[in-house]
């Protein structure tokens, strides 16, 4: 029996606080929607008709599907664990299985943010770094709803405000963090990049950039080939050792970028070995001083006063340059030069999905990083700081892999990586995609998180090829995690001429009876989070802070009272049944008894495993050392986490800090020091762009050529998103409520009382024009579909934007809710309005509704128009899909009196 869940005050991230979801963990654990046992589908797909089976039978069925396809054609398995916090295990499993078709949910979440940060800075917002909340003077949060990463942001905002810093929220909707921000900028969705470029224009116009920082720590001084006749136009000039060149302004000659004496020049065209070249800095100045980036030119489109833009630029300058933060600690840089102190510019940015989920999101994220770099505010006191194992240069990451070591053997590397140029795309010899999701093709060359959102439609149409088994974990693809929900349901249930499902087998794992469960053939039920082991691993996205590396575990506090098993343990057992390399010993028996065993004894590289604490036979080593069989006990004794402080001289400028680099090698983050300069100008982008301009052996197909040439600008740009339309003048977006974890919150008896149903929030002026009253109903119409939804009138929202809470609407029969539950009657999804394909272009082709660079799902490009609707006779929103049968029944309608039994 769980009496109470309380935060751990010693925990390095949450420091004892819990969010609403954390405190409601009791109700999550005791949810009536928990799956009870493995299930085999007995009715048609979607009906929800199942029979409970034993684990032996369930594993036999899974093996009977997975073993033959591994032996014949492993790519016929598509394994997409969605909101998976164990990707280093699941990815490794898929690699050993040998299918190229693996990714988690990043492609429809925030890959734009991750990719932009990785290519420019060597790490992105949130999981790789965070604002220096303690010392910053000016915080800008862009497109951050009440989610990632919720408690640290709340704590950070409180801290910043207590210290007298200004917090400014750039968001179309003034809820949550934006409600407490000192200033709210109610920007038009999709124009953040334009706004930031206007700020950058102001910095250049007024000479407020940190030249010293730029020339030392970024590629501002690197020389770019400026010879229009050269096939290398736009690439960096390099010496014989392939080192990029700078132009030394004292010696008037080219030097490699790592010459300790080098004094890079920021301007002037020079000729090196007969090639005209120009430094990155001057290219930037030319670009960003252009008048079309001026505040007056962008104000109308952004929905922000030009005066406001200029004032914010002035405030940034004041905070950055007149409030310098100095940490008096000597340090040594990558070239052996000693510095007496760290100097910081106390301006800190954070951004999330509101920036990411647009088709211009990748370049928009880059404008944010450019702004940070121009004022010298990255990896310095008061600015944006990385969390180990980041920062890491692009070169420290693998390139993507789809090739097998031998026919039907393991993949010869990890699936996901960072392409350096067209040669790293995953294309077959005939140019067709190697992966089912078309990741790493010309459709989305830098889709570094894969493209889970394209898998079902591609598999259903057999484009690029047919698959046999779709294996999903914790992703509600038949409901709120897909665009075009009704269409996706049709694809999951589509049959061929022989009356067989076009996706022959679907395996799904979740702890709860979500909408997706009904569309699977085999359910492998997961435990609740209180019944299992987990690790938040250094090989994934650990819990580190800027001053310390840290990771953590979960361990079971109660035994399951159902016939369920942790998904990771199931996957490990399946790996052994399939005799996957790494999952079996030499005699073919299972190598790991369960996930806990794997967490302790697995070594990815010698001495480097999932957990960094208490390693070595005696448990006294950290980071890199042999496994310790008692490791988990040590974690439990320490409150479930391990934390090791970074030496003081290594805490800032980590990317070029000699002490940090050596410490990181000792910890096992990488095997040799990897210092690097930040990339304002990203050469890999230029390589794709040059291919589109006709250079090199691998070029985009004709229909994508101009798009690649226009969008792959090596310097950050802004372009309008794909959906601008006069017919559909309003933007429609969603936000995730602070108290809900996607669709998983509505089964929770306490949380669902906070968001029992959602409404469409409509600006007052739009309501008045359409004659819609508060509490009335509206049709919301896109070029794809229409929905009927209840309306609430709102003022604190961008004047051209309507919005609602995400994933509150449910399908009748799911989540063990009664059929007349509010979520299933009045609740609604915007997903029905969003097509996974854009309307046909002039050539008749339909482009994916995603970022052309990364493939990020462009949820927030959605455009709509609104009309007054009569109240529906049955009081339900539309579309209203047929109820599903619940495989777990319905939660009790009697009073819930938690605690009665023992008080």
């Amino acid at each position: 029996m769980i009496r109470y869940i309380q935060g751990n005050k010693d925990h390095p991230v949450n420091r004892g606080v819990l969010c609403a979801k954390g405190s409601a963990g009791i109700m999550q654990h005791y949810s009536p929607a928990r799956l009870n046992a493995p299930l085999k589908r007995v009715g048609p797909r979607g009906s929800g008709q199942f029979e409970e089976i034993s684990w032996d039978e369930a594993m036999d069925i899974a093996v009977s599907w997975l073993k033959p396809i591994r032996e014949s054609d492993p790519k016929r398995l598509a394994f997409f664990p969605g909101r998976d916090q164990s990707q280093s295990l699941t990815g490794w499993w898929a690699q050993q299985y040998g299918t190229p078709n693996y990714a988690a949910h990043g492609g429809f979440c925030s890959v734009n943010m991750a990719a932009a940060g990785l290519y420019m800075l060597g790490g992105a917002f949130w999981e790789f770094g965070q604002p220096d909340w303690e010392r910053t003077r000016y915080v800008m949060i862009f497109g951050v709803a009440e989610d990632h990463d919720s408690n640290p942001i709340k704590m950070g905002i409180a801290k910043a405000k207590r210290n007298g810093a200004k917090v400014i929220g750039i968001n179309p909707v003034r809820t949550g963090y934006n409600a407490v921000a000192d200033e709210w900028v109610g920007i038009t969705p999709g124009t953040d990049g334009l706004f930031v470029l206007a700020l950058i224009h102001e910095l250049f116009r007024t000479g407020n950039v940190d030249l010293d920082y730029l020339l030392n720590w970024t590629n501002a001084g690197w020389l770019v080939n400026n010879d229009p006749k050269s096939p290398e136009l736009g690439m960096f000039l390099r010496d014989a050792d392939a080192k990029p060149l700078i132009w030394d302004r004292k010696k008037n000659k080219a030097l490699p970028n790592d010459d300790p004496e080098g004094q890079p020049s920021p301007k002037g065209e020079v000729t090196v070995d007969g090639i005209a070249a120009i430094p990155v800095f001057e290219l930037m100045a030319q670009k960003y001083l252009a008048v079309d980036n001026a505040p007056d030119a962008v104000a109308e489109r952004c929905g922000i006063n030009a005066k406001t833009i200029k004032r914010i630029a002035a405030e940034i300058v004041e905070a950055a340059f007149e409030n310098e933060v100095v940490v008096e600690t000597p340090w040594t840089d990558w070239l052996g030069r000693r510095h007496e102190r760290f100097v910081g510019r106390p301006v800190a940015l954070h951004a999330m999905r509101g920036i990411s989920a647009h088709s211009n999101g990748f370049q928009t994220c880059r404008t944010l990083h450019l702004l940070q770099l121009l004022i010298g505010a990255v990896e310095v006191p008061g600015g944006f700081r990385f969390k180990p194992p980041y920062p890491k240069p692009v070169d420290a990451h693998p390139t993507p892999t789809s090739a097998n070591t031998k026919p039907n053997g393991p993949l010869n590397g990890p699936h996901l990586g960072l392409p350096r140029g067209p040669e790293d795309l995953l294309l077959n010899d005939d140019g067709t995609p190697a992966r089912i999701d078309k990741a790493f093709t010309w459709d989305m060359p830098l889709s570094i998180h894969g493209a889970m959102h394209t898998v079902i439609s591609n598999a259903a149409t057999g484009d690029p090829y047919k698959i046999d088994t779709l294996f999903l974990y914790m992703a509600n693809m038949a409901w709120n995690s897909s665009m075009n929900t009704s269409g996706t349901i049709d694809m999951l249930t589509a049959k061929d001429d022989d009356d067989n499902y076009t996706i022959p087998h679907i395996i799904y794992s979740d702890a709860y009876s979500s909408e997706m469960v009904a569309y699977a053939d085999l359910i492998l039920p997961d435990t609740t989070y209180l019944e299992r082991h987990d690790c938040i691993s250094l090989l994934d996205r650990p819990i580190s802070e800027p001053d310390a590396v840290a990771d953590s575990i979960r361990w079971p506090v109660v035994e399951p009272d159902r016939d369920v098993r942790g998904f990771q343990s199931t996957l490990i057992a399946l790996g052994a049944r399939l005799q996957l390399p790494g999952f079996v010993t030499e005699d073919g028996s299972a190598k790991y008894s369960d996930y806990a065993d794997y967490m302790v004894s697995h070594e990815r590289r010698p001495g480097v495993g999932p957990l960094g604490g208490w390693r070595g036979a005696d448990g006294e080593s950290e980071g890199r050392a042999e496994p310790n069989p008692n490791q988990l006990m040590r974690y439990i004794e320490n409150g479930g986490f391990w934390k090791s402080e970074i030496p003081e001289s290594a805490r800032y400028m980590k990317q070029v800090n000699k002490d940090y680099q050596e410490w990181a090698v000792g910890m096992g983050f990488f095997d040799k020091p990897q210092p690097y300069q930040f990339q304002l100008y990203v050469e890999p982008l230029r390589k794709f762009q040059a291919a589109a301009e006709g250079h090199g052996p691998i070029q985009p197909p004709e229909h994508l050529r101009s798009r690649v040439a226009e969008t792959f600008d090596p310097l950050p740009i802004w372009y309008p998103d794909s959906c601008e339309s006069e017919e559909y003048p309003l933007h429609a977006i969603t936000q995730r409520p602070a108290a809900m974890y996607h669709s998983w919150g509505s089964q929770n008896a306490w949380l669902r009382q906070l968001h029992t149903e959602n409404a469409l929030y409509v600006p007052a002026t739009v309501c008045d024009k359409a004659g819609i009253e508060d509490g009335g109903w509206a049709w919301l119409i896109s070029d794809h579909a229409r929905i009927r939804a209840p309306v609430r009138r709102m003022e604190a929202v961008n004047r051209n934007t309507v919005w609602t809470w995400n994933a509150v609407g449910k399908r009748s029969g799911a989540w063990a809710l009664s059929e007349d539950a509010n979520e299933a009657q009045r609740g609604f999804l915007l997903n029905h309005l969003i097509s996974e394909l854009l309307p046909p272009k002039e050539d008749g082709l339909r482009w994916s509704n995603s970022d052309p660079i990364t493939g990020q799902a462009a949820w927030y490009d959605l455009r709509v128009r609104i009309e007054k609707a009569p109240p529906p006779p049955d009081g339900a929103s539309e579309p209203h899909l047929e109820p599903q049968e619940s495989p777990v029944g319905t939660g009790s309608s009697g009073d819930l009196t938690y605690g009665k039994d023992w008080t």
Partner: protein
Amino acid sequence: MTSLPQPSKKKLGLVIDLDTCVGCHACVISCKEWNTSGYGAPLSDQNPYGKDPSGTWLNRVHTFEITPNVSRCDQPDAPAQIVHFPRSCLHCEDAPCVTVCPTGASYKRSEDGIVLVNEDACMGCGLCAWACPYGARELDQAEGVMKKCTLCIDRIYNENLPEEDRIPACVRTCPAEARHFGDLGDPESSVSKLVAERDGFTLMPEKYAKPVNHYLPPRSRTDIDGPEPFALASLAEPEATGFLGWLDKALERLN
């Protein structure tokens, strides 16, 4: 009728910061979680998995939208604002909920001012909820007794808890530092100082209930361009030359 004790010297209560409350409901759920198996009867939920679920809560957060002509009459162009307002028992000095209680179940403690309900004596008549100007009491539908915030009396004096945890659950969990607990009868306490520094106020003083709990107002928002916004000086025109000219000077400074 139940009488109030002489005002206590010690006045335990909450100070709630409307400047940082993001409306996340962490406090609401933590309160429910602690108190449903704590002091008195559980905080029940009706139709928890069906239509129109409801339940007993000792602390709720309400969200208000404030339009400019209300919030900033001096600045009619200011954008609308959203304020999250946590509401729970204010532990009033002249608690009207106590004096209307026909059975003596509602009472105010003389030692620390906490207002409590003795559930054994409560007949669920609901008079106290009618009398409370703040809507801070809820009649539990399963048990038929009146429930209200106890300031986590089973935490704050609980010697089985580490000393740092002897604070109400809502205060301990609040990620935004928006909730503070202490003795508002002591002018030297941290909560009294917060109230003094931040112009803390009580709700609806015209009701003469003398609430102990205080609220800190949202700080002035700055999302307005004044008549003379300070601007950055442009470099000499034309701009490109001006910028390169600046660059030369900046480089000289670096050398």
